[in-house]
């Protein structure tokens, strides 16, 4: 195991975050603050409680998930796409480091960063609305697994992308809609019956539901199923990453 190599990639990627502090951390935090002002305070004030939780508090877990999903995907994809684009990937490929260690460094750093963003948003949210966390450890667990799974997804996107535009397609056209339709701002029980069935194909529903359960103890789907679905998603992403390195797809010619 090349620990120094993993550490070098991990620290390099985190250093990129500090270098670009403003867009890395300040911008997602600002975006979330806007959501709270608009949905939580302005609109939320006119809405009744959902499952015994005030609307402002209800959207906190969903919003954190939304940010963690999009940040993980875009960070990890950018992190591996940049060396490909600039050619500096030659050094990674020529280093005595395994595919697993490369992924560990890049995905670990992206997941760490989105975890930090998630926690900052959590603290920011507390300034706007009052909420409590019923199962803090589960909360962290869900946050971690989600950050990891979507950082892996981002890594795959970054490897496959052959242009900056491609880098944006999946986050903007897939992740964002799934996140919005995944119960971020509402409980899926509020949907018409047919839609309640359809949304079960949306993996984000399970993430948000499980995450919300860790806050308020109520969930749209059983928490064990949420956990199982995140794990399945994680395993699928891992399998794709393994395949990429095994075949050298878009990495080694």
């Amino acid at each position, binding site marked *: 195991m090349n620990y120094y190599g993993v550490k*070098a990639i991990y620290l390099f990627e985190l250093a990129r975050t500090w270098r670009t502090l403003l867009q890395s951390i300040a911008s997602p935090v600002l975006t979330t603050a806007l959501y709270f002002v608009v949905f939580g305070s302005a609109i939320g004030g006119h809405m009744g409680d959902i499952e015994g939780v005030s609307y402002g508090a209800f959207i906190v877990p969903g919003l954190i998930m939304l940010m963690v999903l999009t940040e993980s995907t875009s960070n990890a994809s950018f992190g591996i796409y940049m060396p490909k684009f600039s050619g500096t990937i030659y050094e990674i490929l020529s280093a*005595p480091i395994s595919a697993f260690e490369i992924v560990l460094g890049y995905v670990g750093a992206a997941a760490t960063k989105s975890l930090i963003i998630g926690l900052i948003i959590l603290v920011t949210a507390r300034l706007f609305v009052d909420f409590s966390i019923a199962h803090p450890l589960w909360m962290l667990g869900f946050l971690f697994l989600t950050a990891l799974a979507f950082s892996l997804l981002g890594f795959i996107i970054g490897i496959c992308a052959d242009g900056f535009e491609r880098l944006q397609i999946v986050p903007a056209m897939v992740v964002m809609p799934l996140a919005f339709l995944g119960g971020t701002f509402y409980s899926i029980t509020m949907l018409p019956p047919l839609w309640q069935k359809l949304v079960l194909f949306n993996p984000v529903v399970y993430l948000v539901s499980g995450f919300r359960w860790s806050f308020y103890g109520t969930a749209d789907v059983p928490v064990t199923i949420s956990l199982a679905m995140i794990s399945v998603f994680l395993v699928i992403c891992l399998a794709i990453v393994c395949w990429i390195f095994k075949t050298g797809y878009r990495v080694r*010619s």
Partner: protein
Amino acid sequence: MQPVIAVEGLTKVYASGFEALRGVDLSIHKGEIFALLGPNGAGKTTLISIICGIVNPGDGRVLANGWDVVKDYRRARASIGLVPQELSVNMFETVWAAVKFSRGLFGKPANDAYLEKLLRDLSLYDKKDTKIMALSGGMKRRVLIAKALAHEPEILFLDEPTAGVDVELRRDMWTMIRALREQGVTIILTTHYIEEAEEMADRIGVIHQGEIILVDGKQNLMNQLGRKQLSVQLTAPLDALPERLTRYQLSLSDDGYQLVYHYDTQNQAAIAPLLRDLEALSLDYSDLHTNQSSLEDIFVSLVEERRA
């Protein structure tokens, strides 16, 4: 002695169908400077990319320090440093962060004293906190060299090290390469500048269309294939070549003032008979000079020989 790099029957066909290497065999000795010489597209970069792990090999195998570069890639790659042809370096990093990263990536614990010395040797130390994008092209290339040497490799690959580099930096680089050899580092450089191979290398391999067509010591190569040319400047012009001189390979210039004689460097007694014949014919000459064919000529004739 075990070669430091052993390439056996290596082939490579790219997905596009392009056959970049066709059964390359090559041994690099420990501590030598080896120049891989060939025109663009000959397979130089593919060959070193496979040795360094950037490109997957086709058939055949490659050993670095005795380790298979695919099966024992960790041990093989740990001893290799690569300076790529392109100026591929993260522009937003500082020089210091870049070399520190490279050292860690290759699995070595931090050693600031070594990195400081490395940067000083490359005249980069006063720029260590500068972002790489603020450096000149030549300086960026030095950074790439520093990155390649950050993990103290025993084998250094330089892919076209002096392409697009100014004369001063080229001289500096040659000095540096010699200094590295003194320290026992084996150096393999690719180039299509023949002067570079001629000036630097102990041995030269010529690669053409994916095949190594020749590997030899530089001196041997020059001796064996080198042809010399003797120019004789006559004091009075000749209308035609005298009968007596026709047995030599001579050519007469249009104005009749210059005789050019081609001969093989192997042939020890090539000049004396000609000069004696000139004497006997009472042909006076004001000047004589010889010049040896350069590697460039040798290379051109090698490639032409294969085409024929």
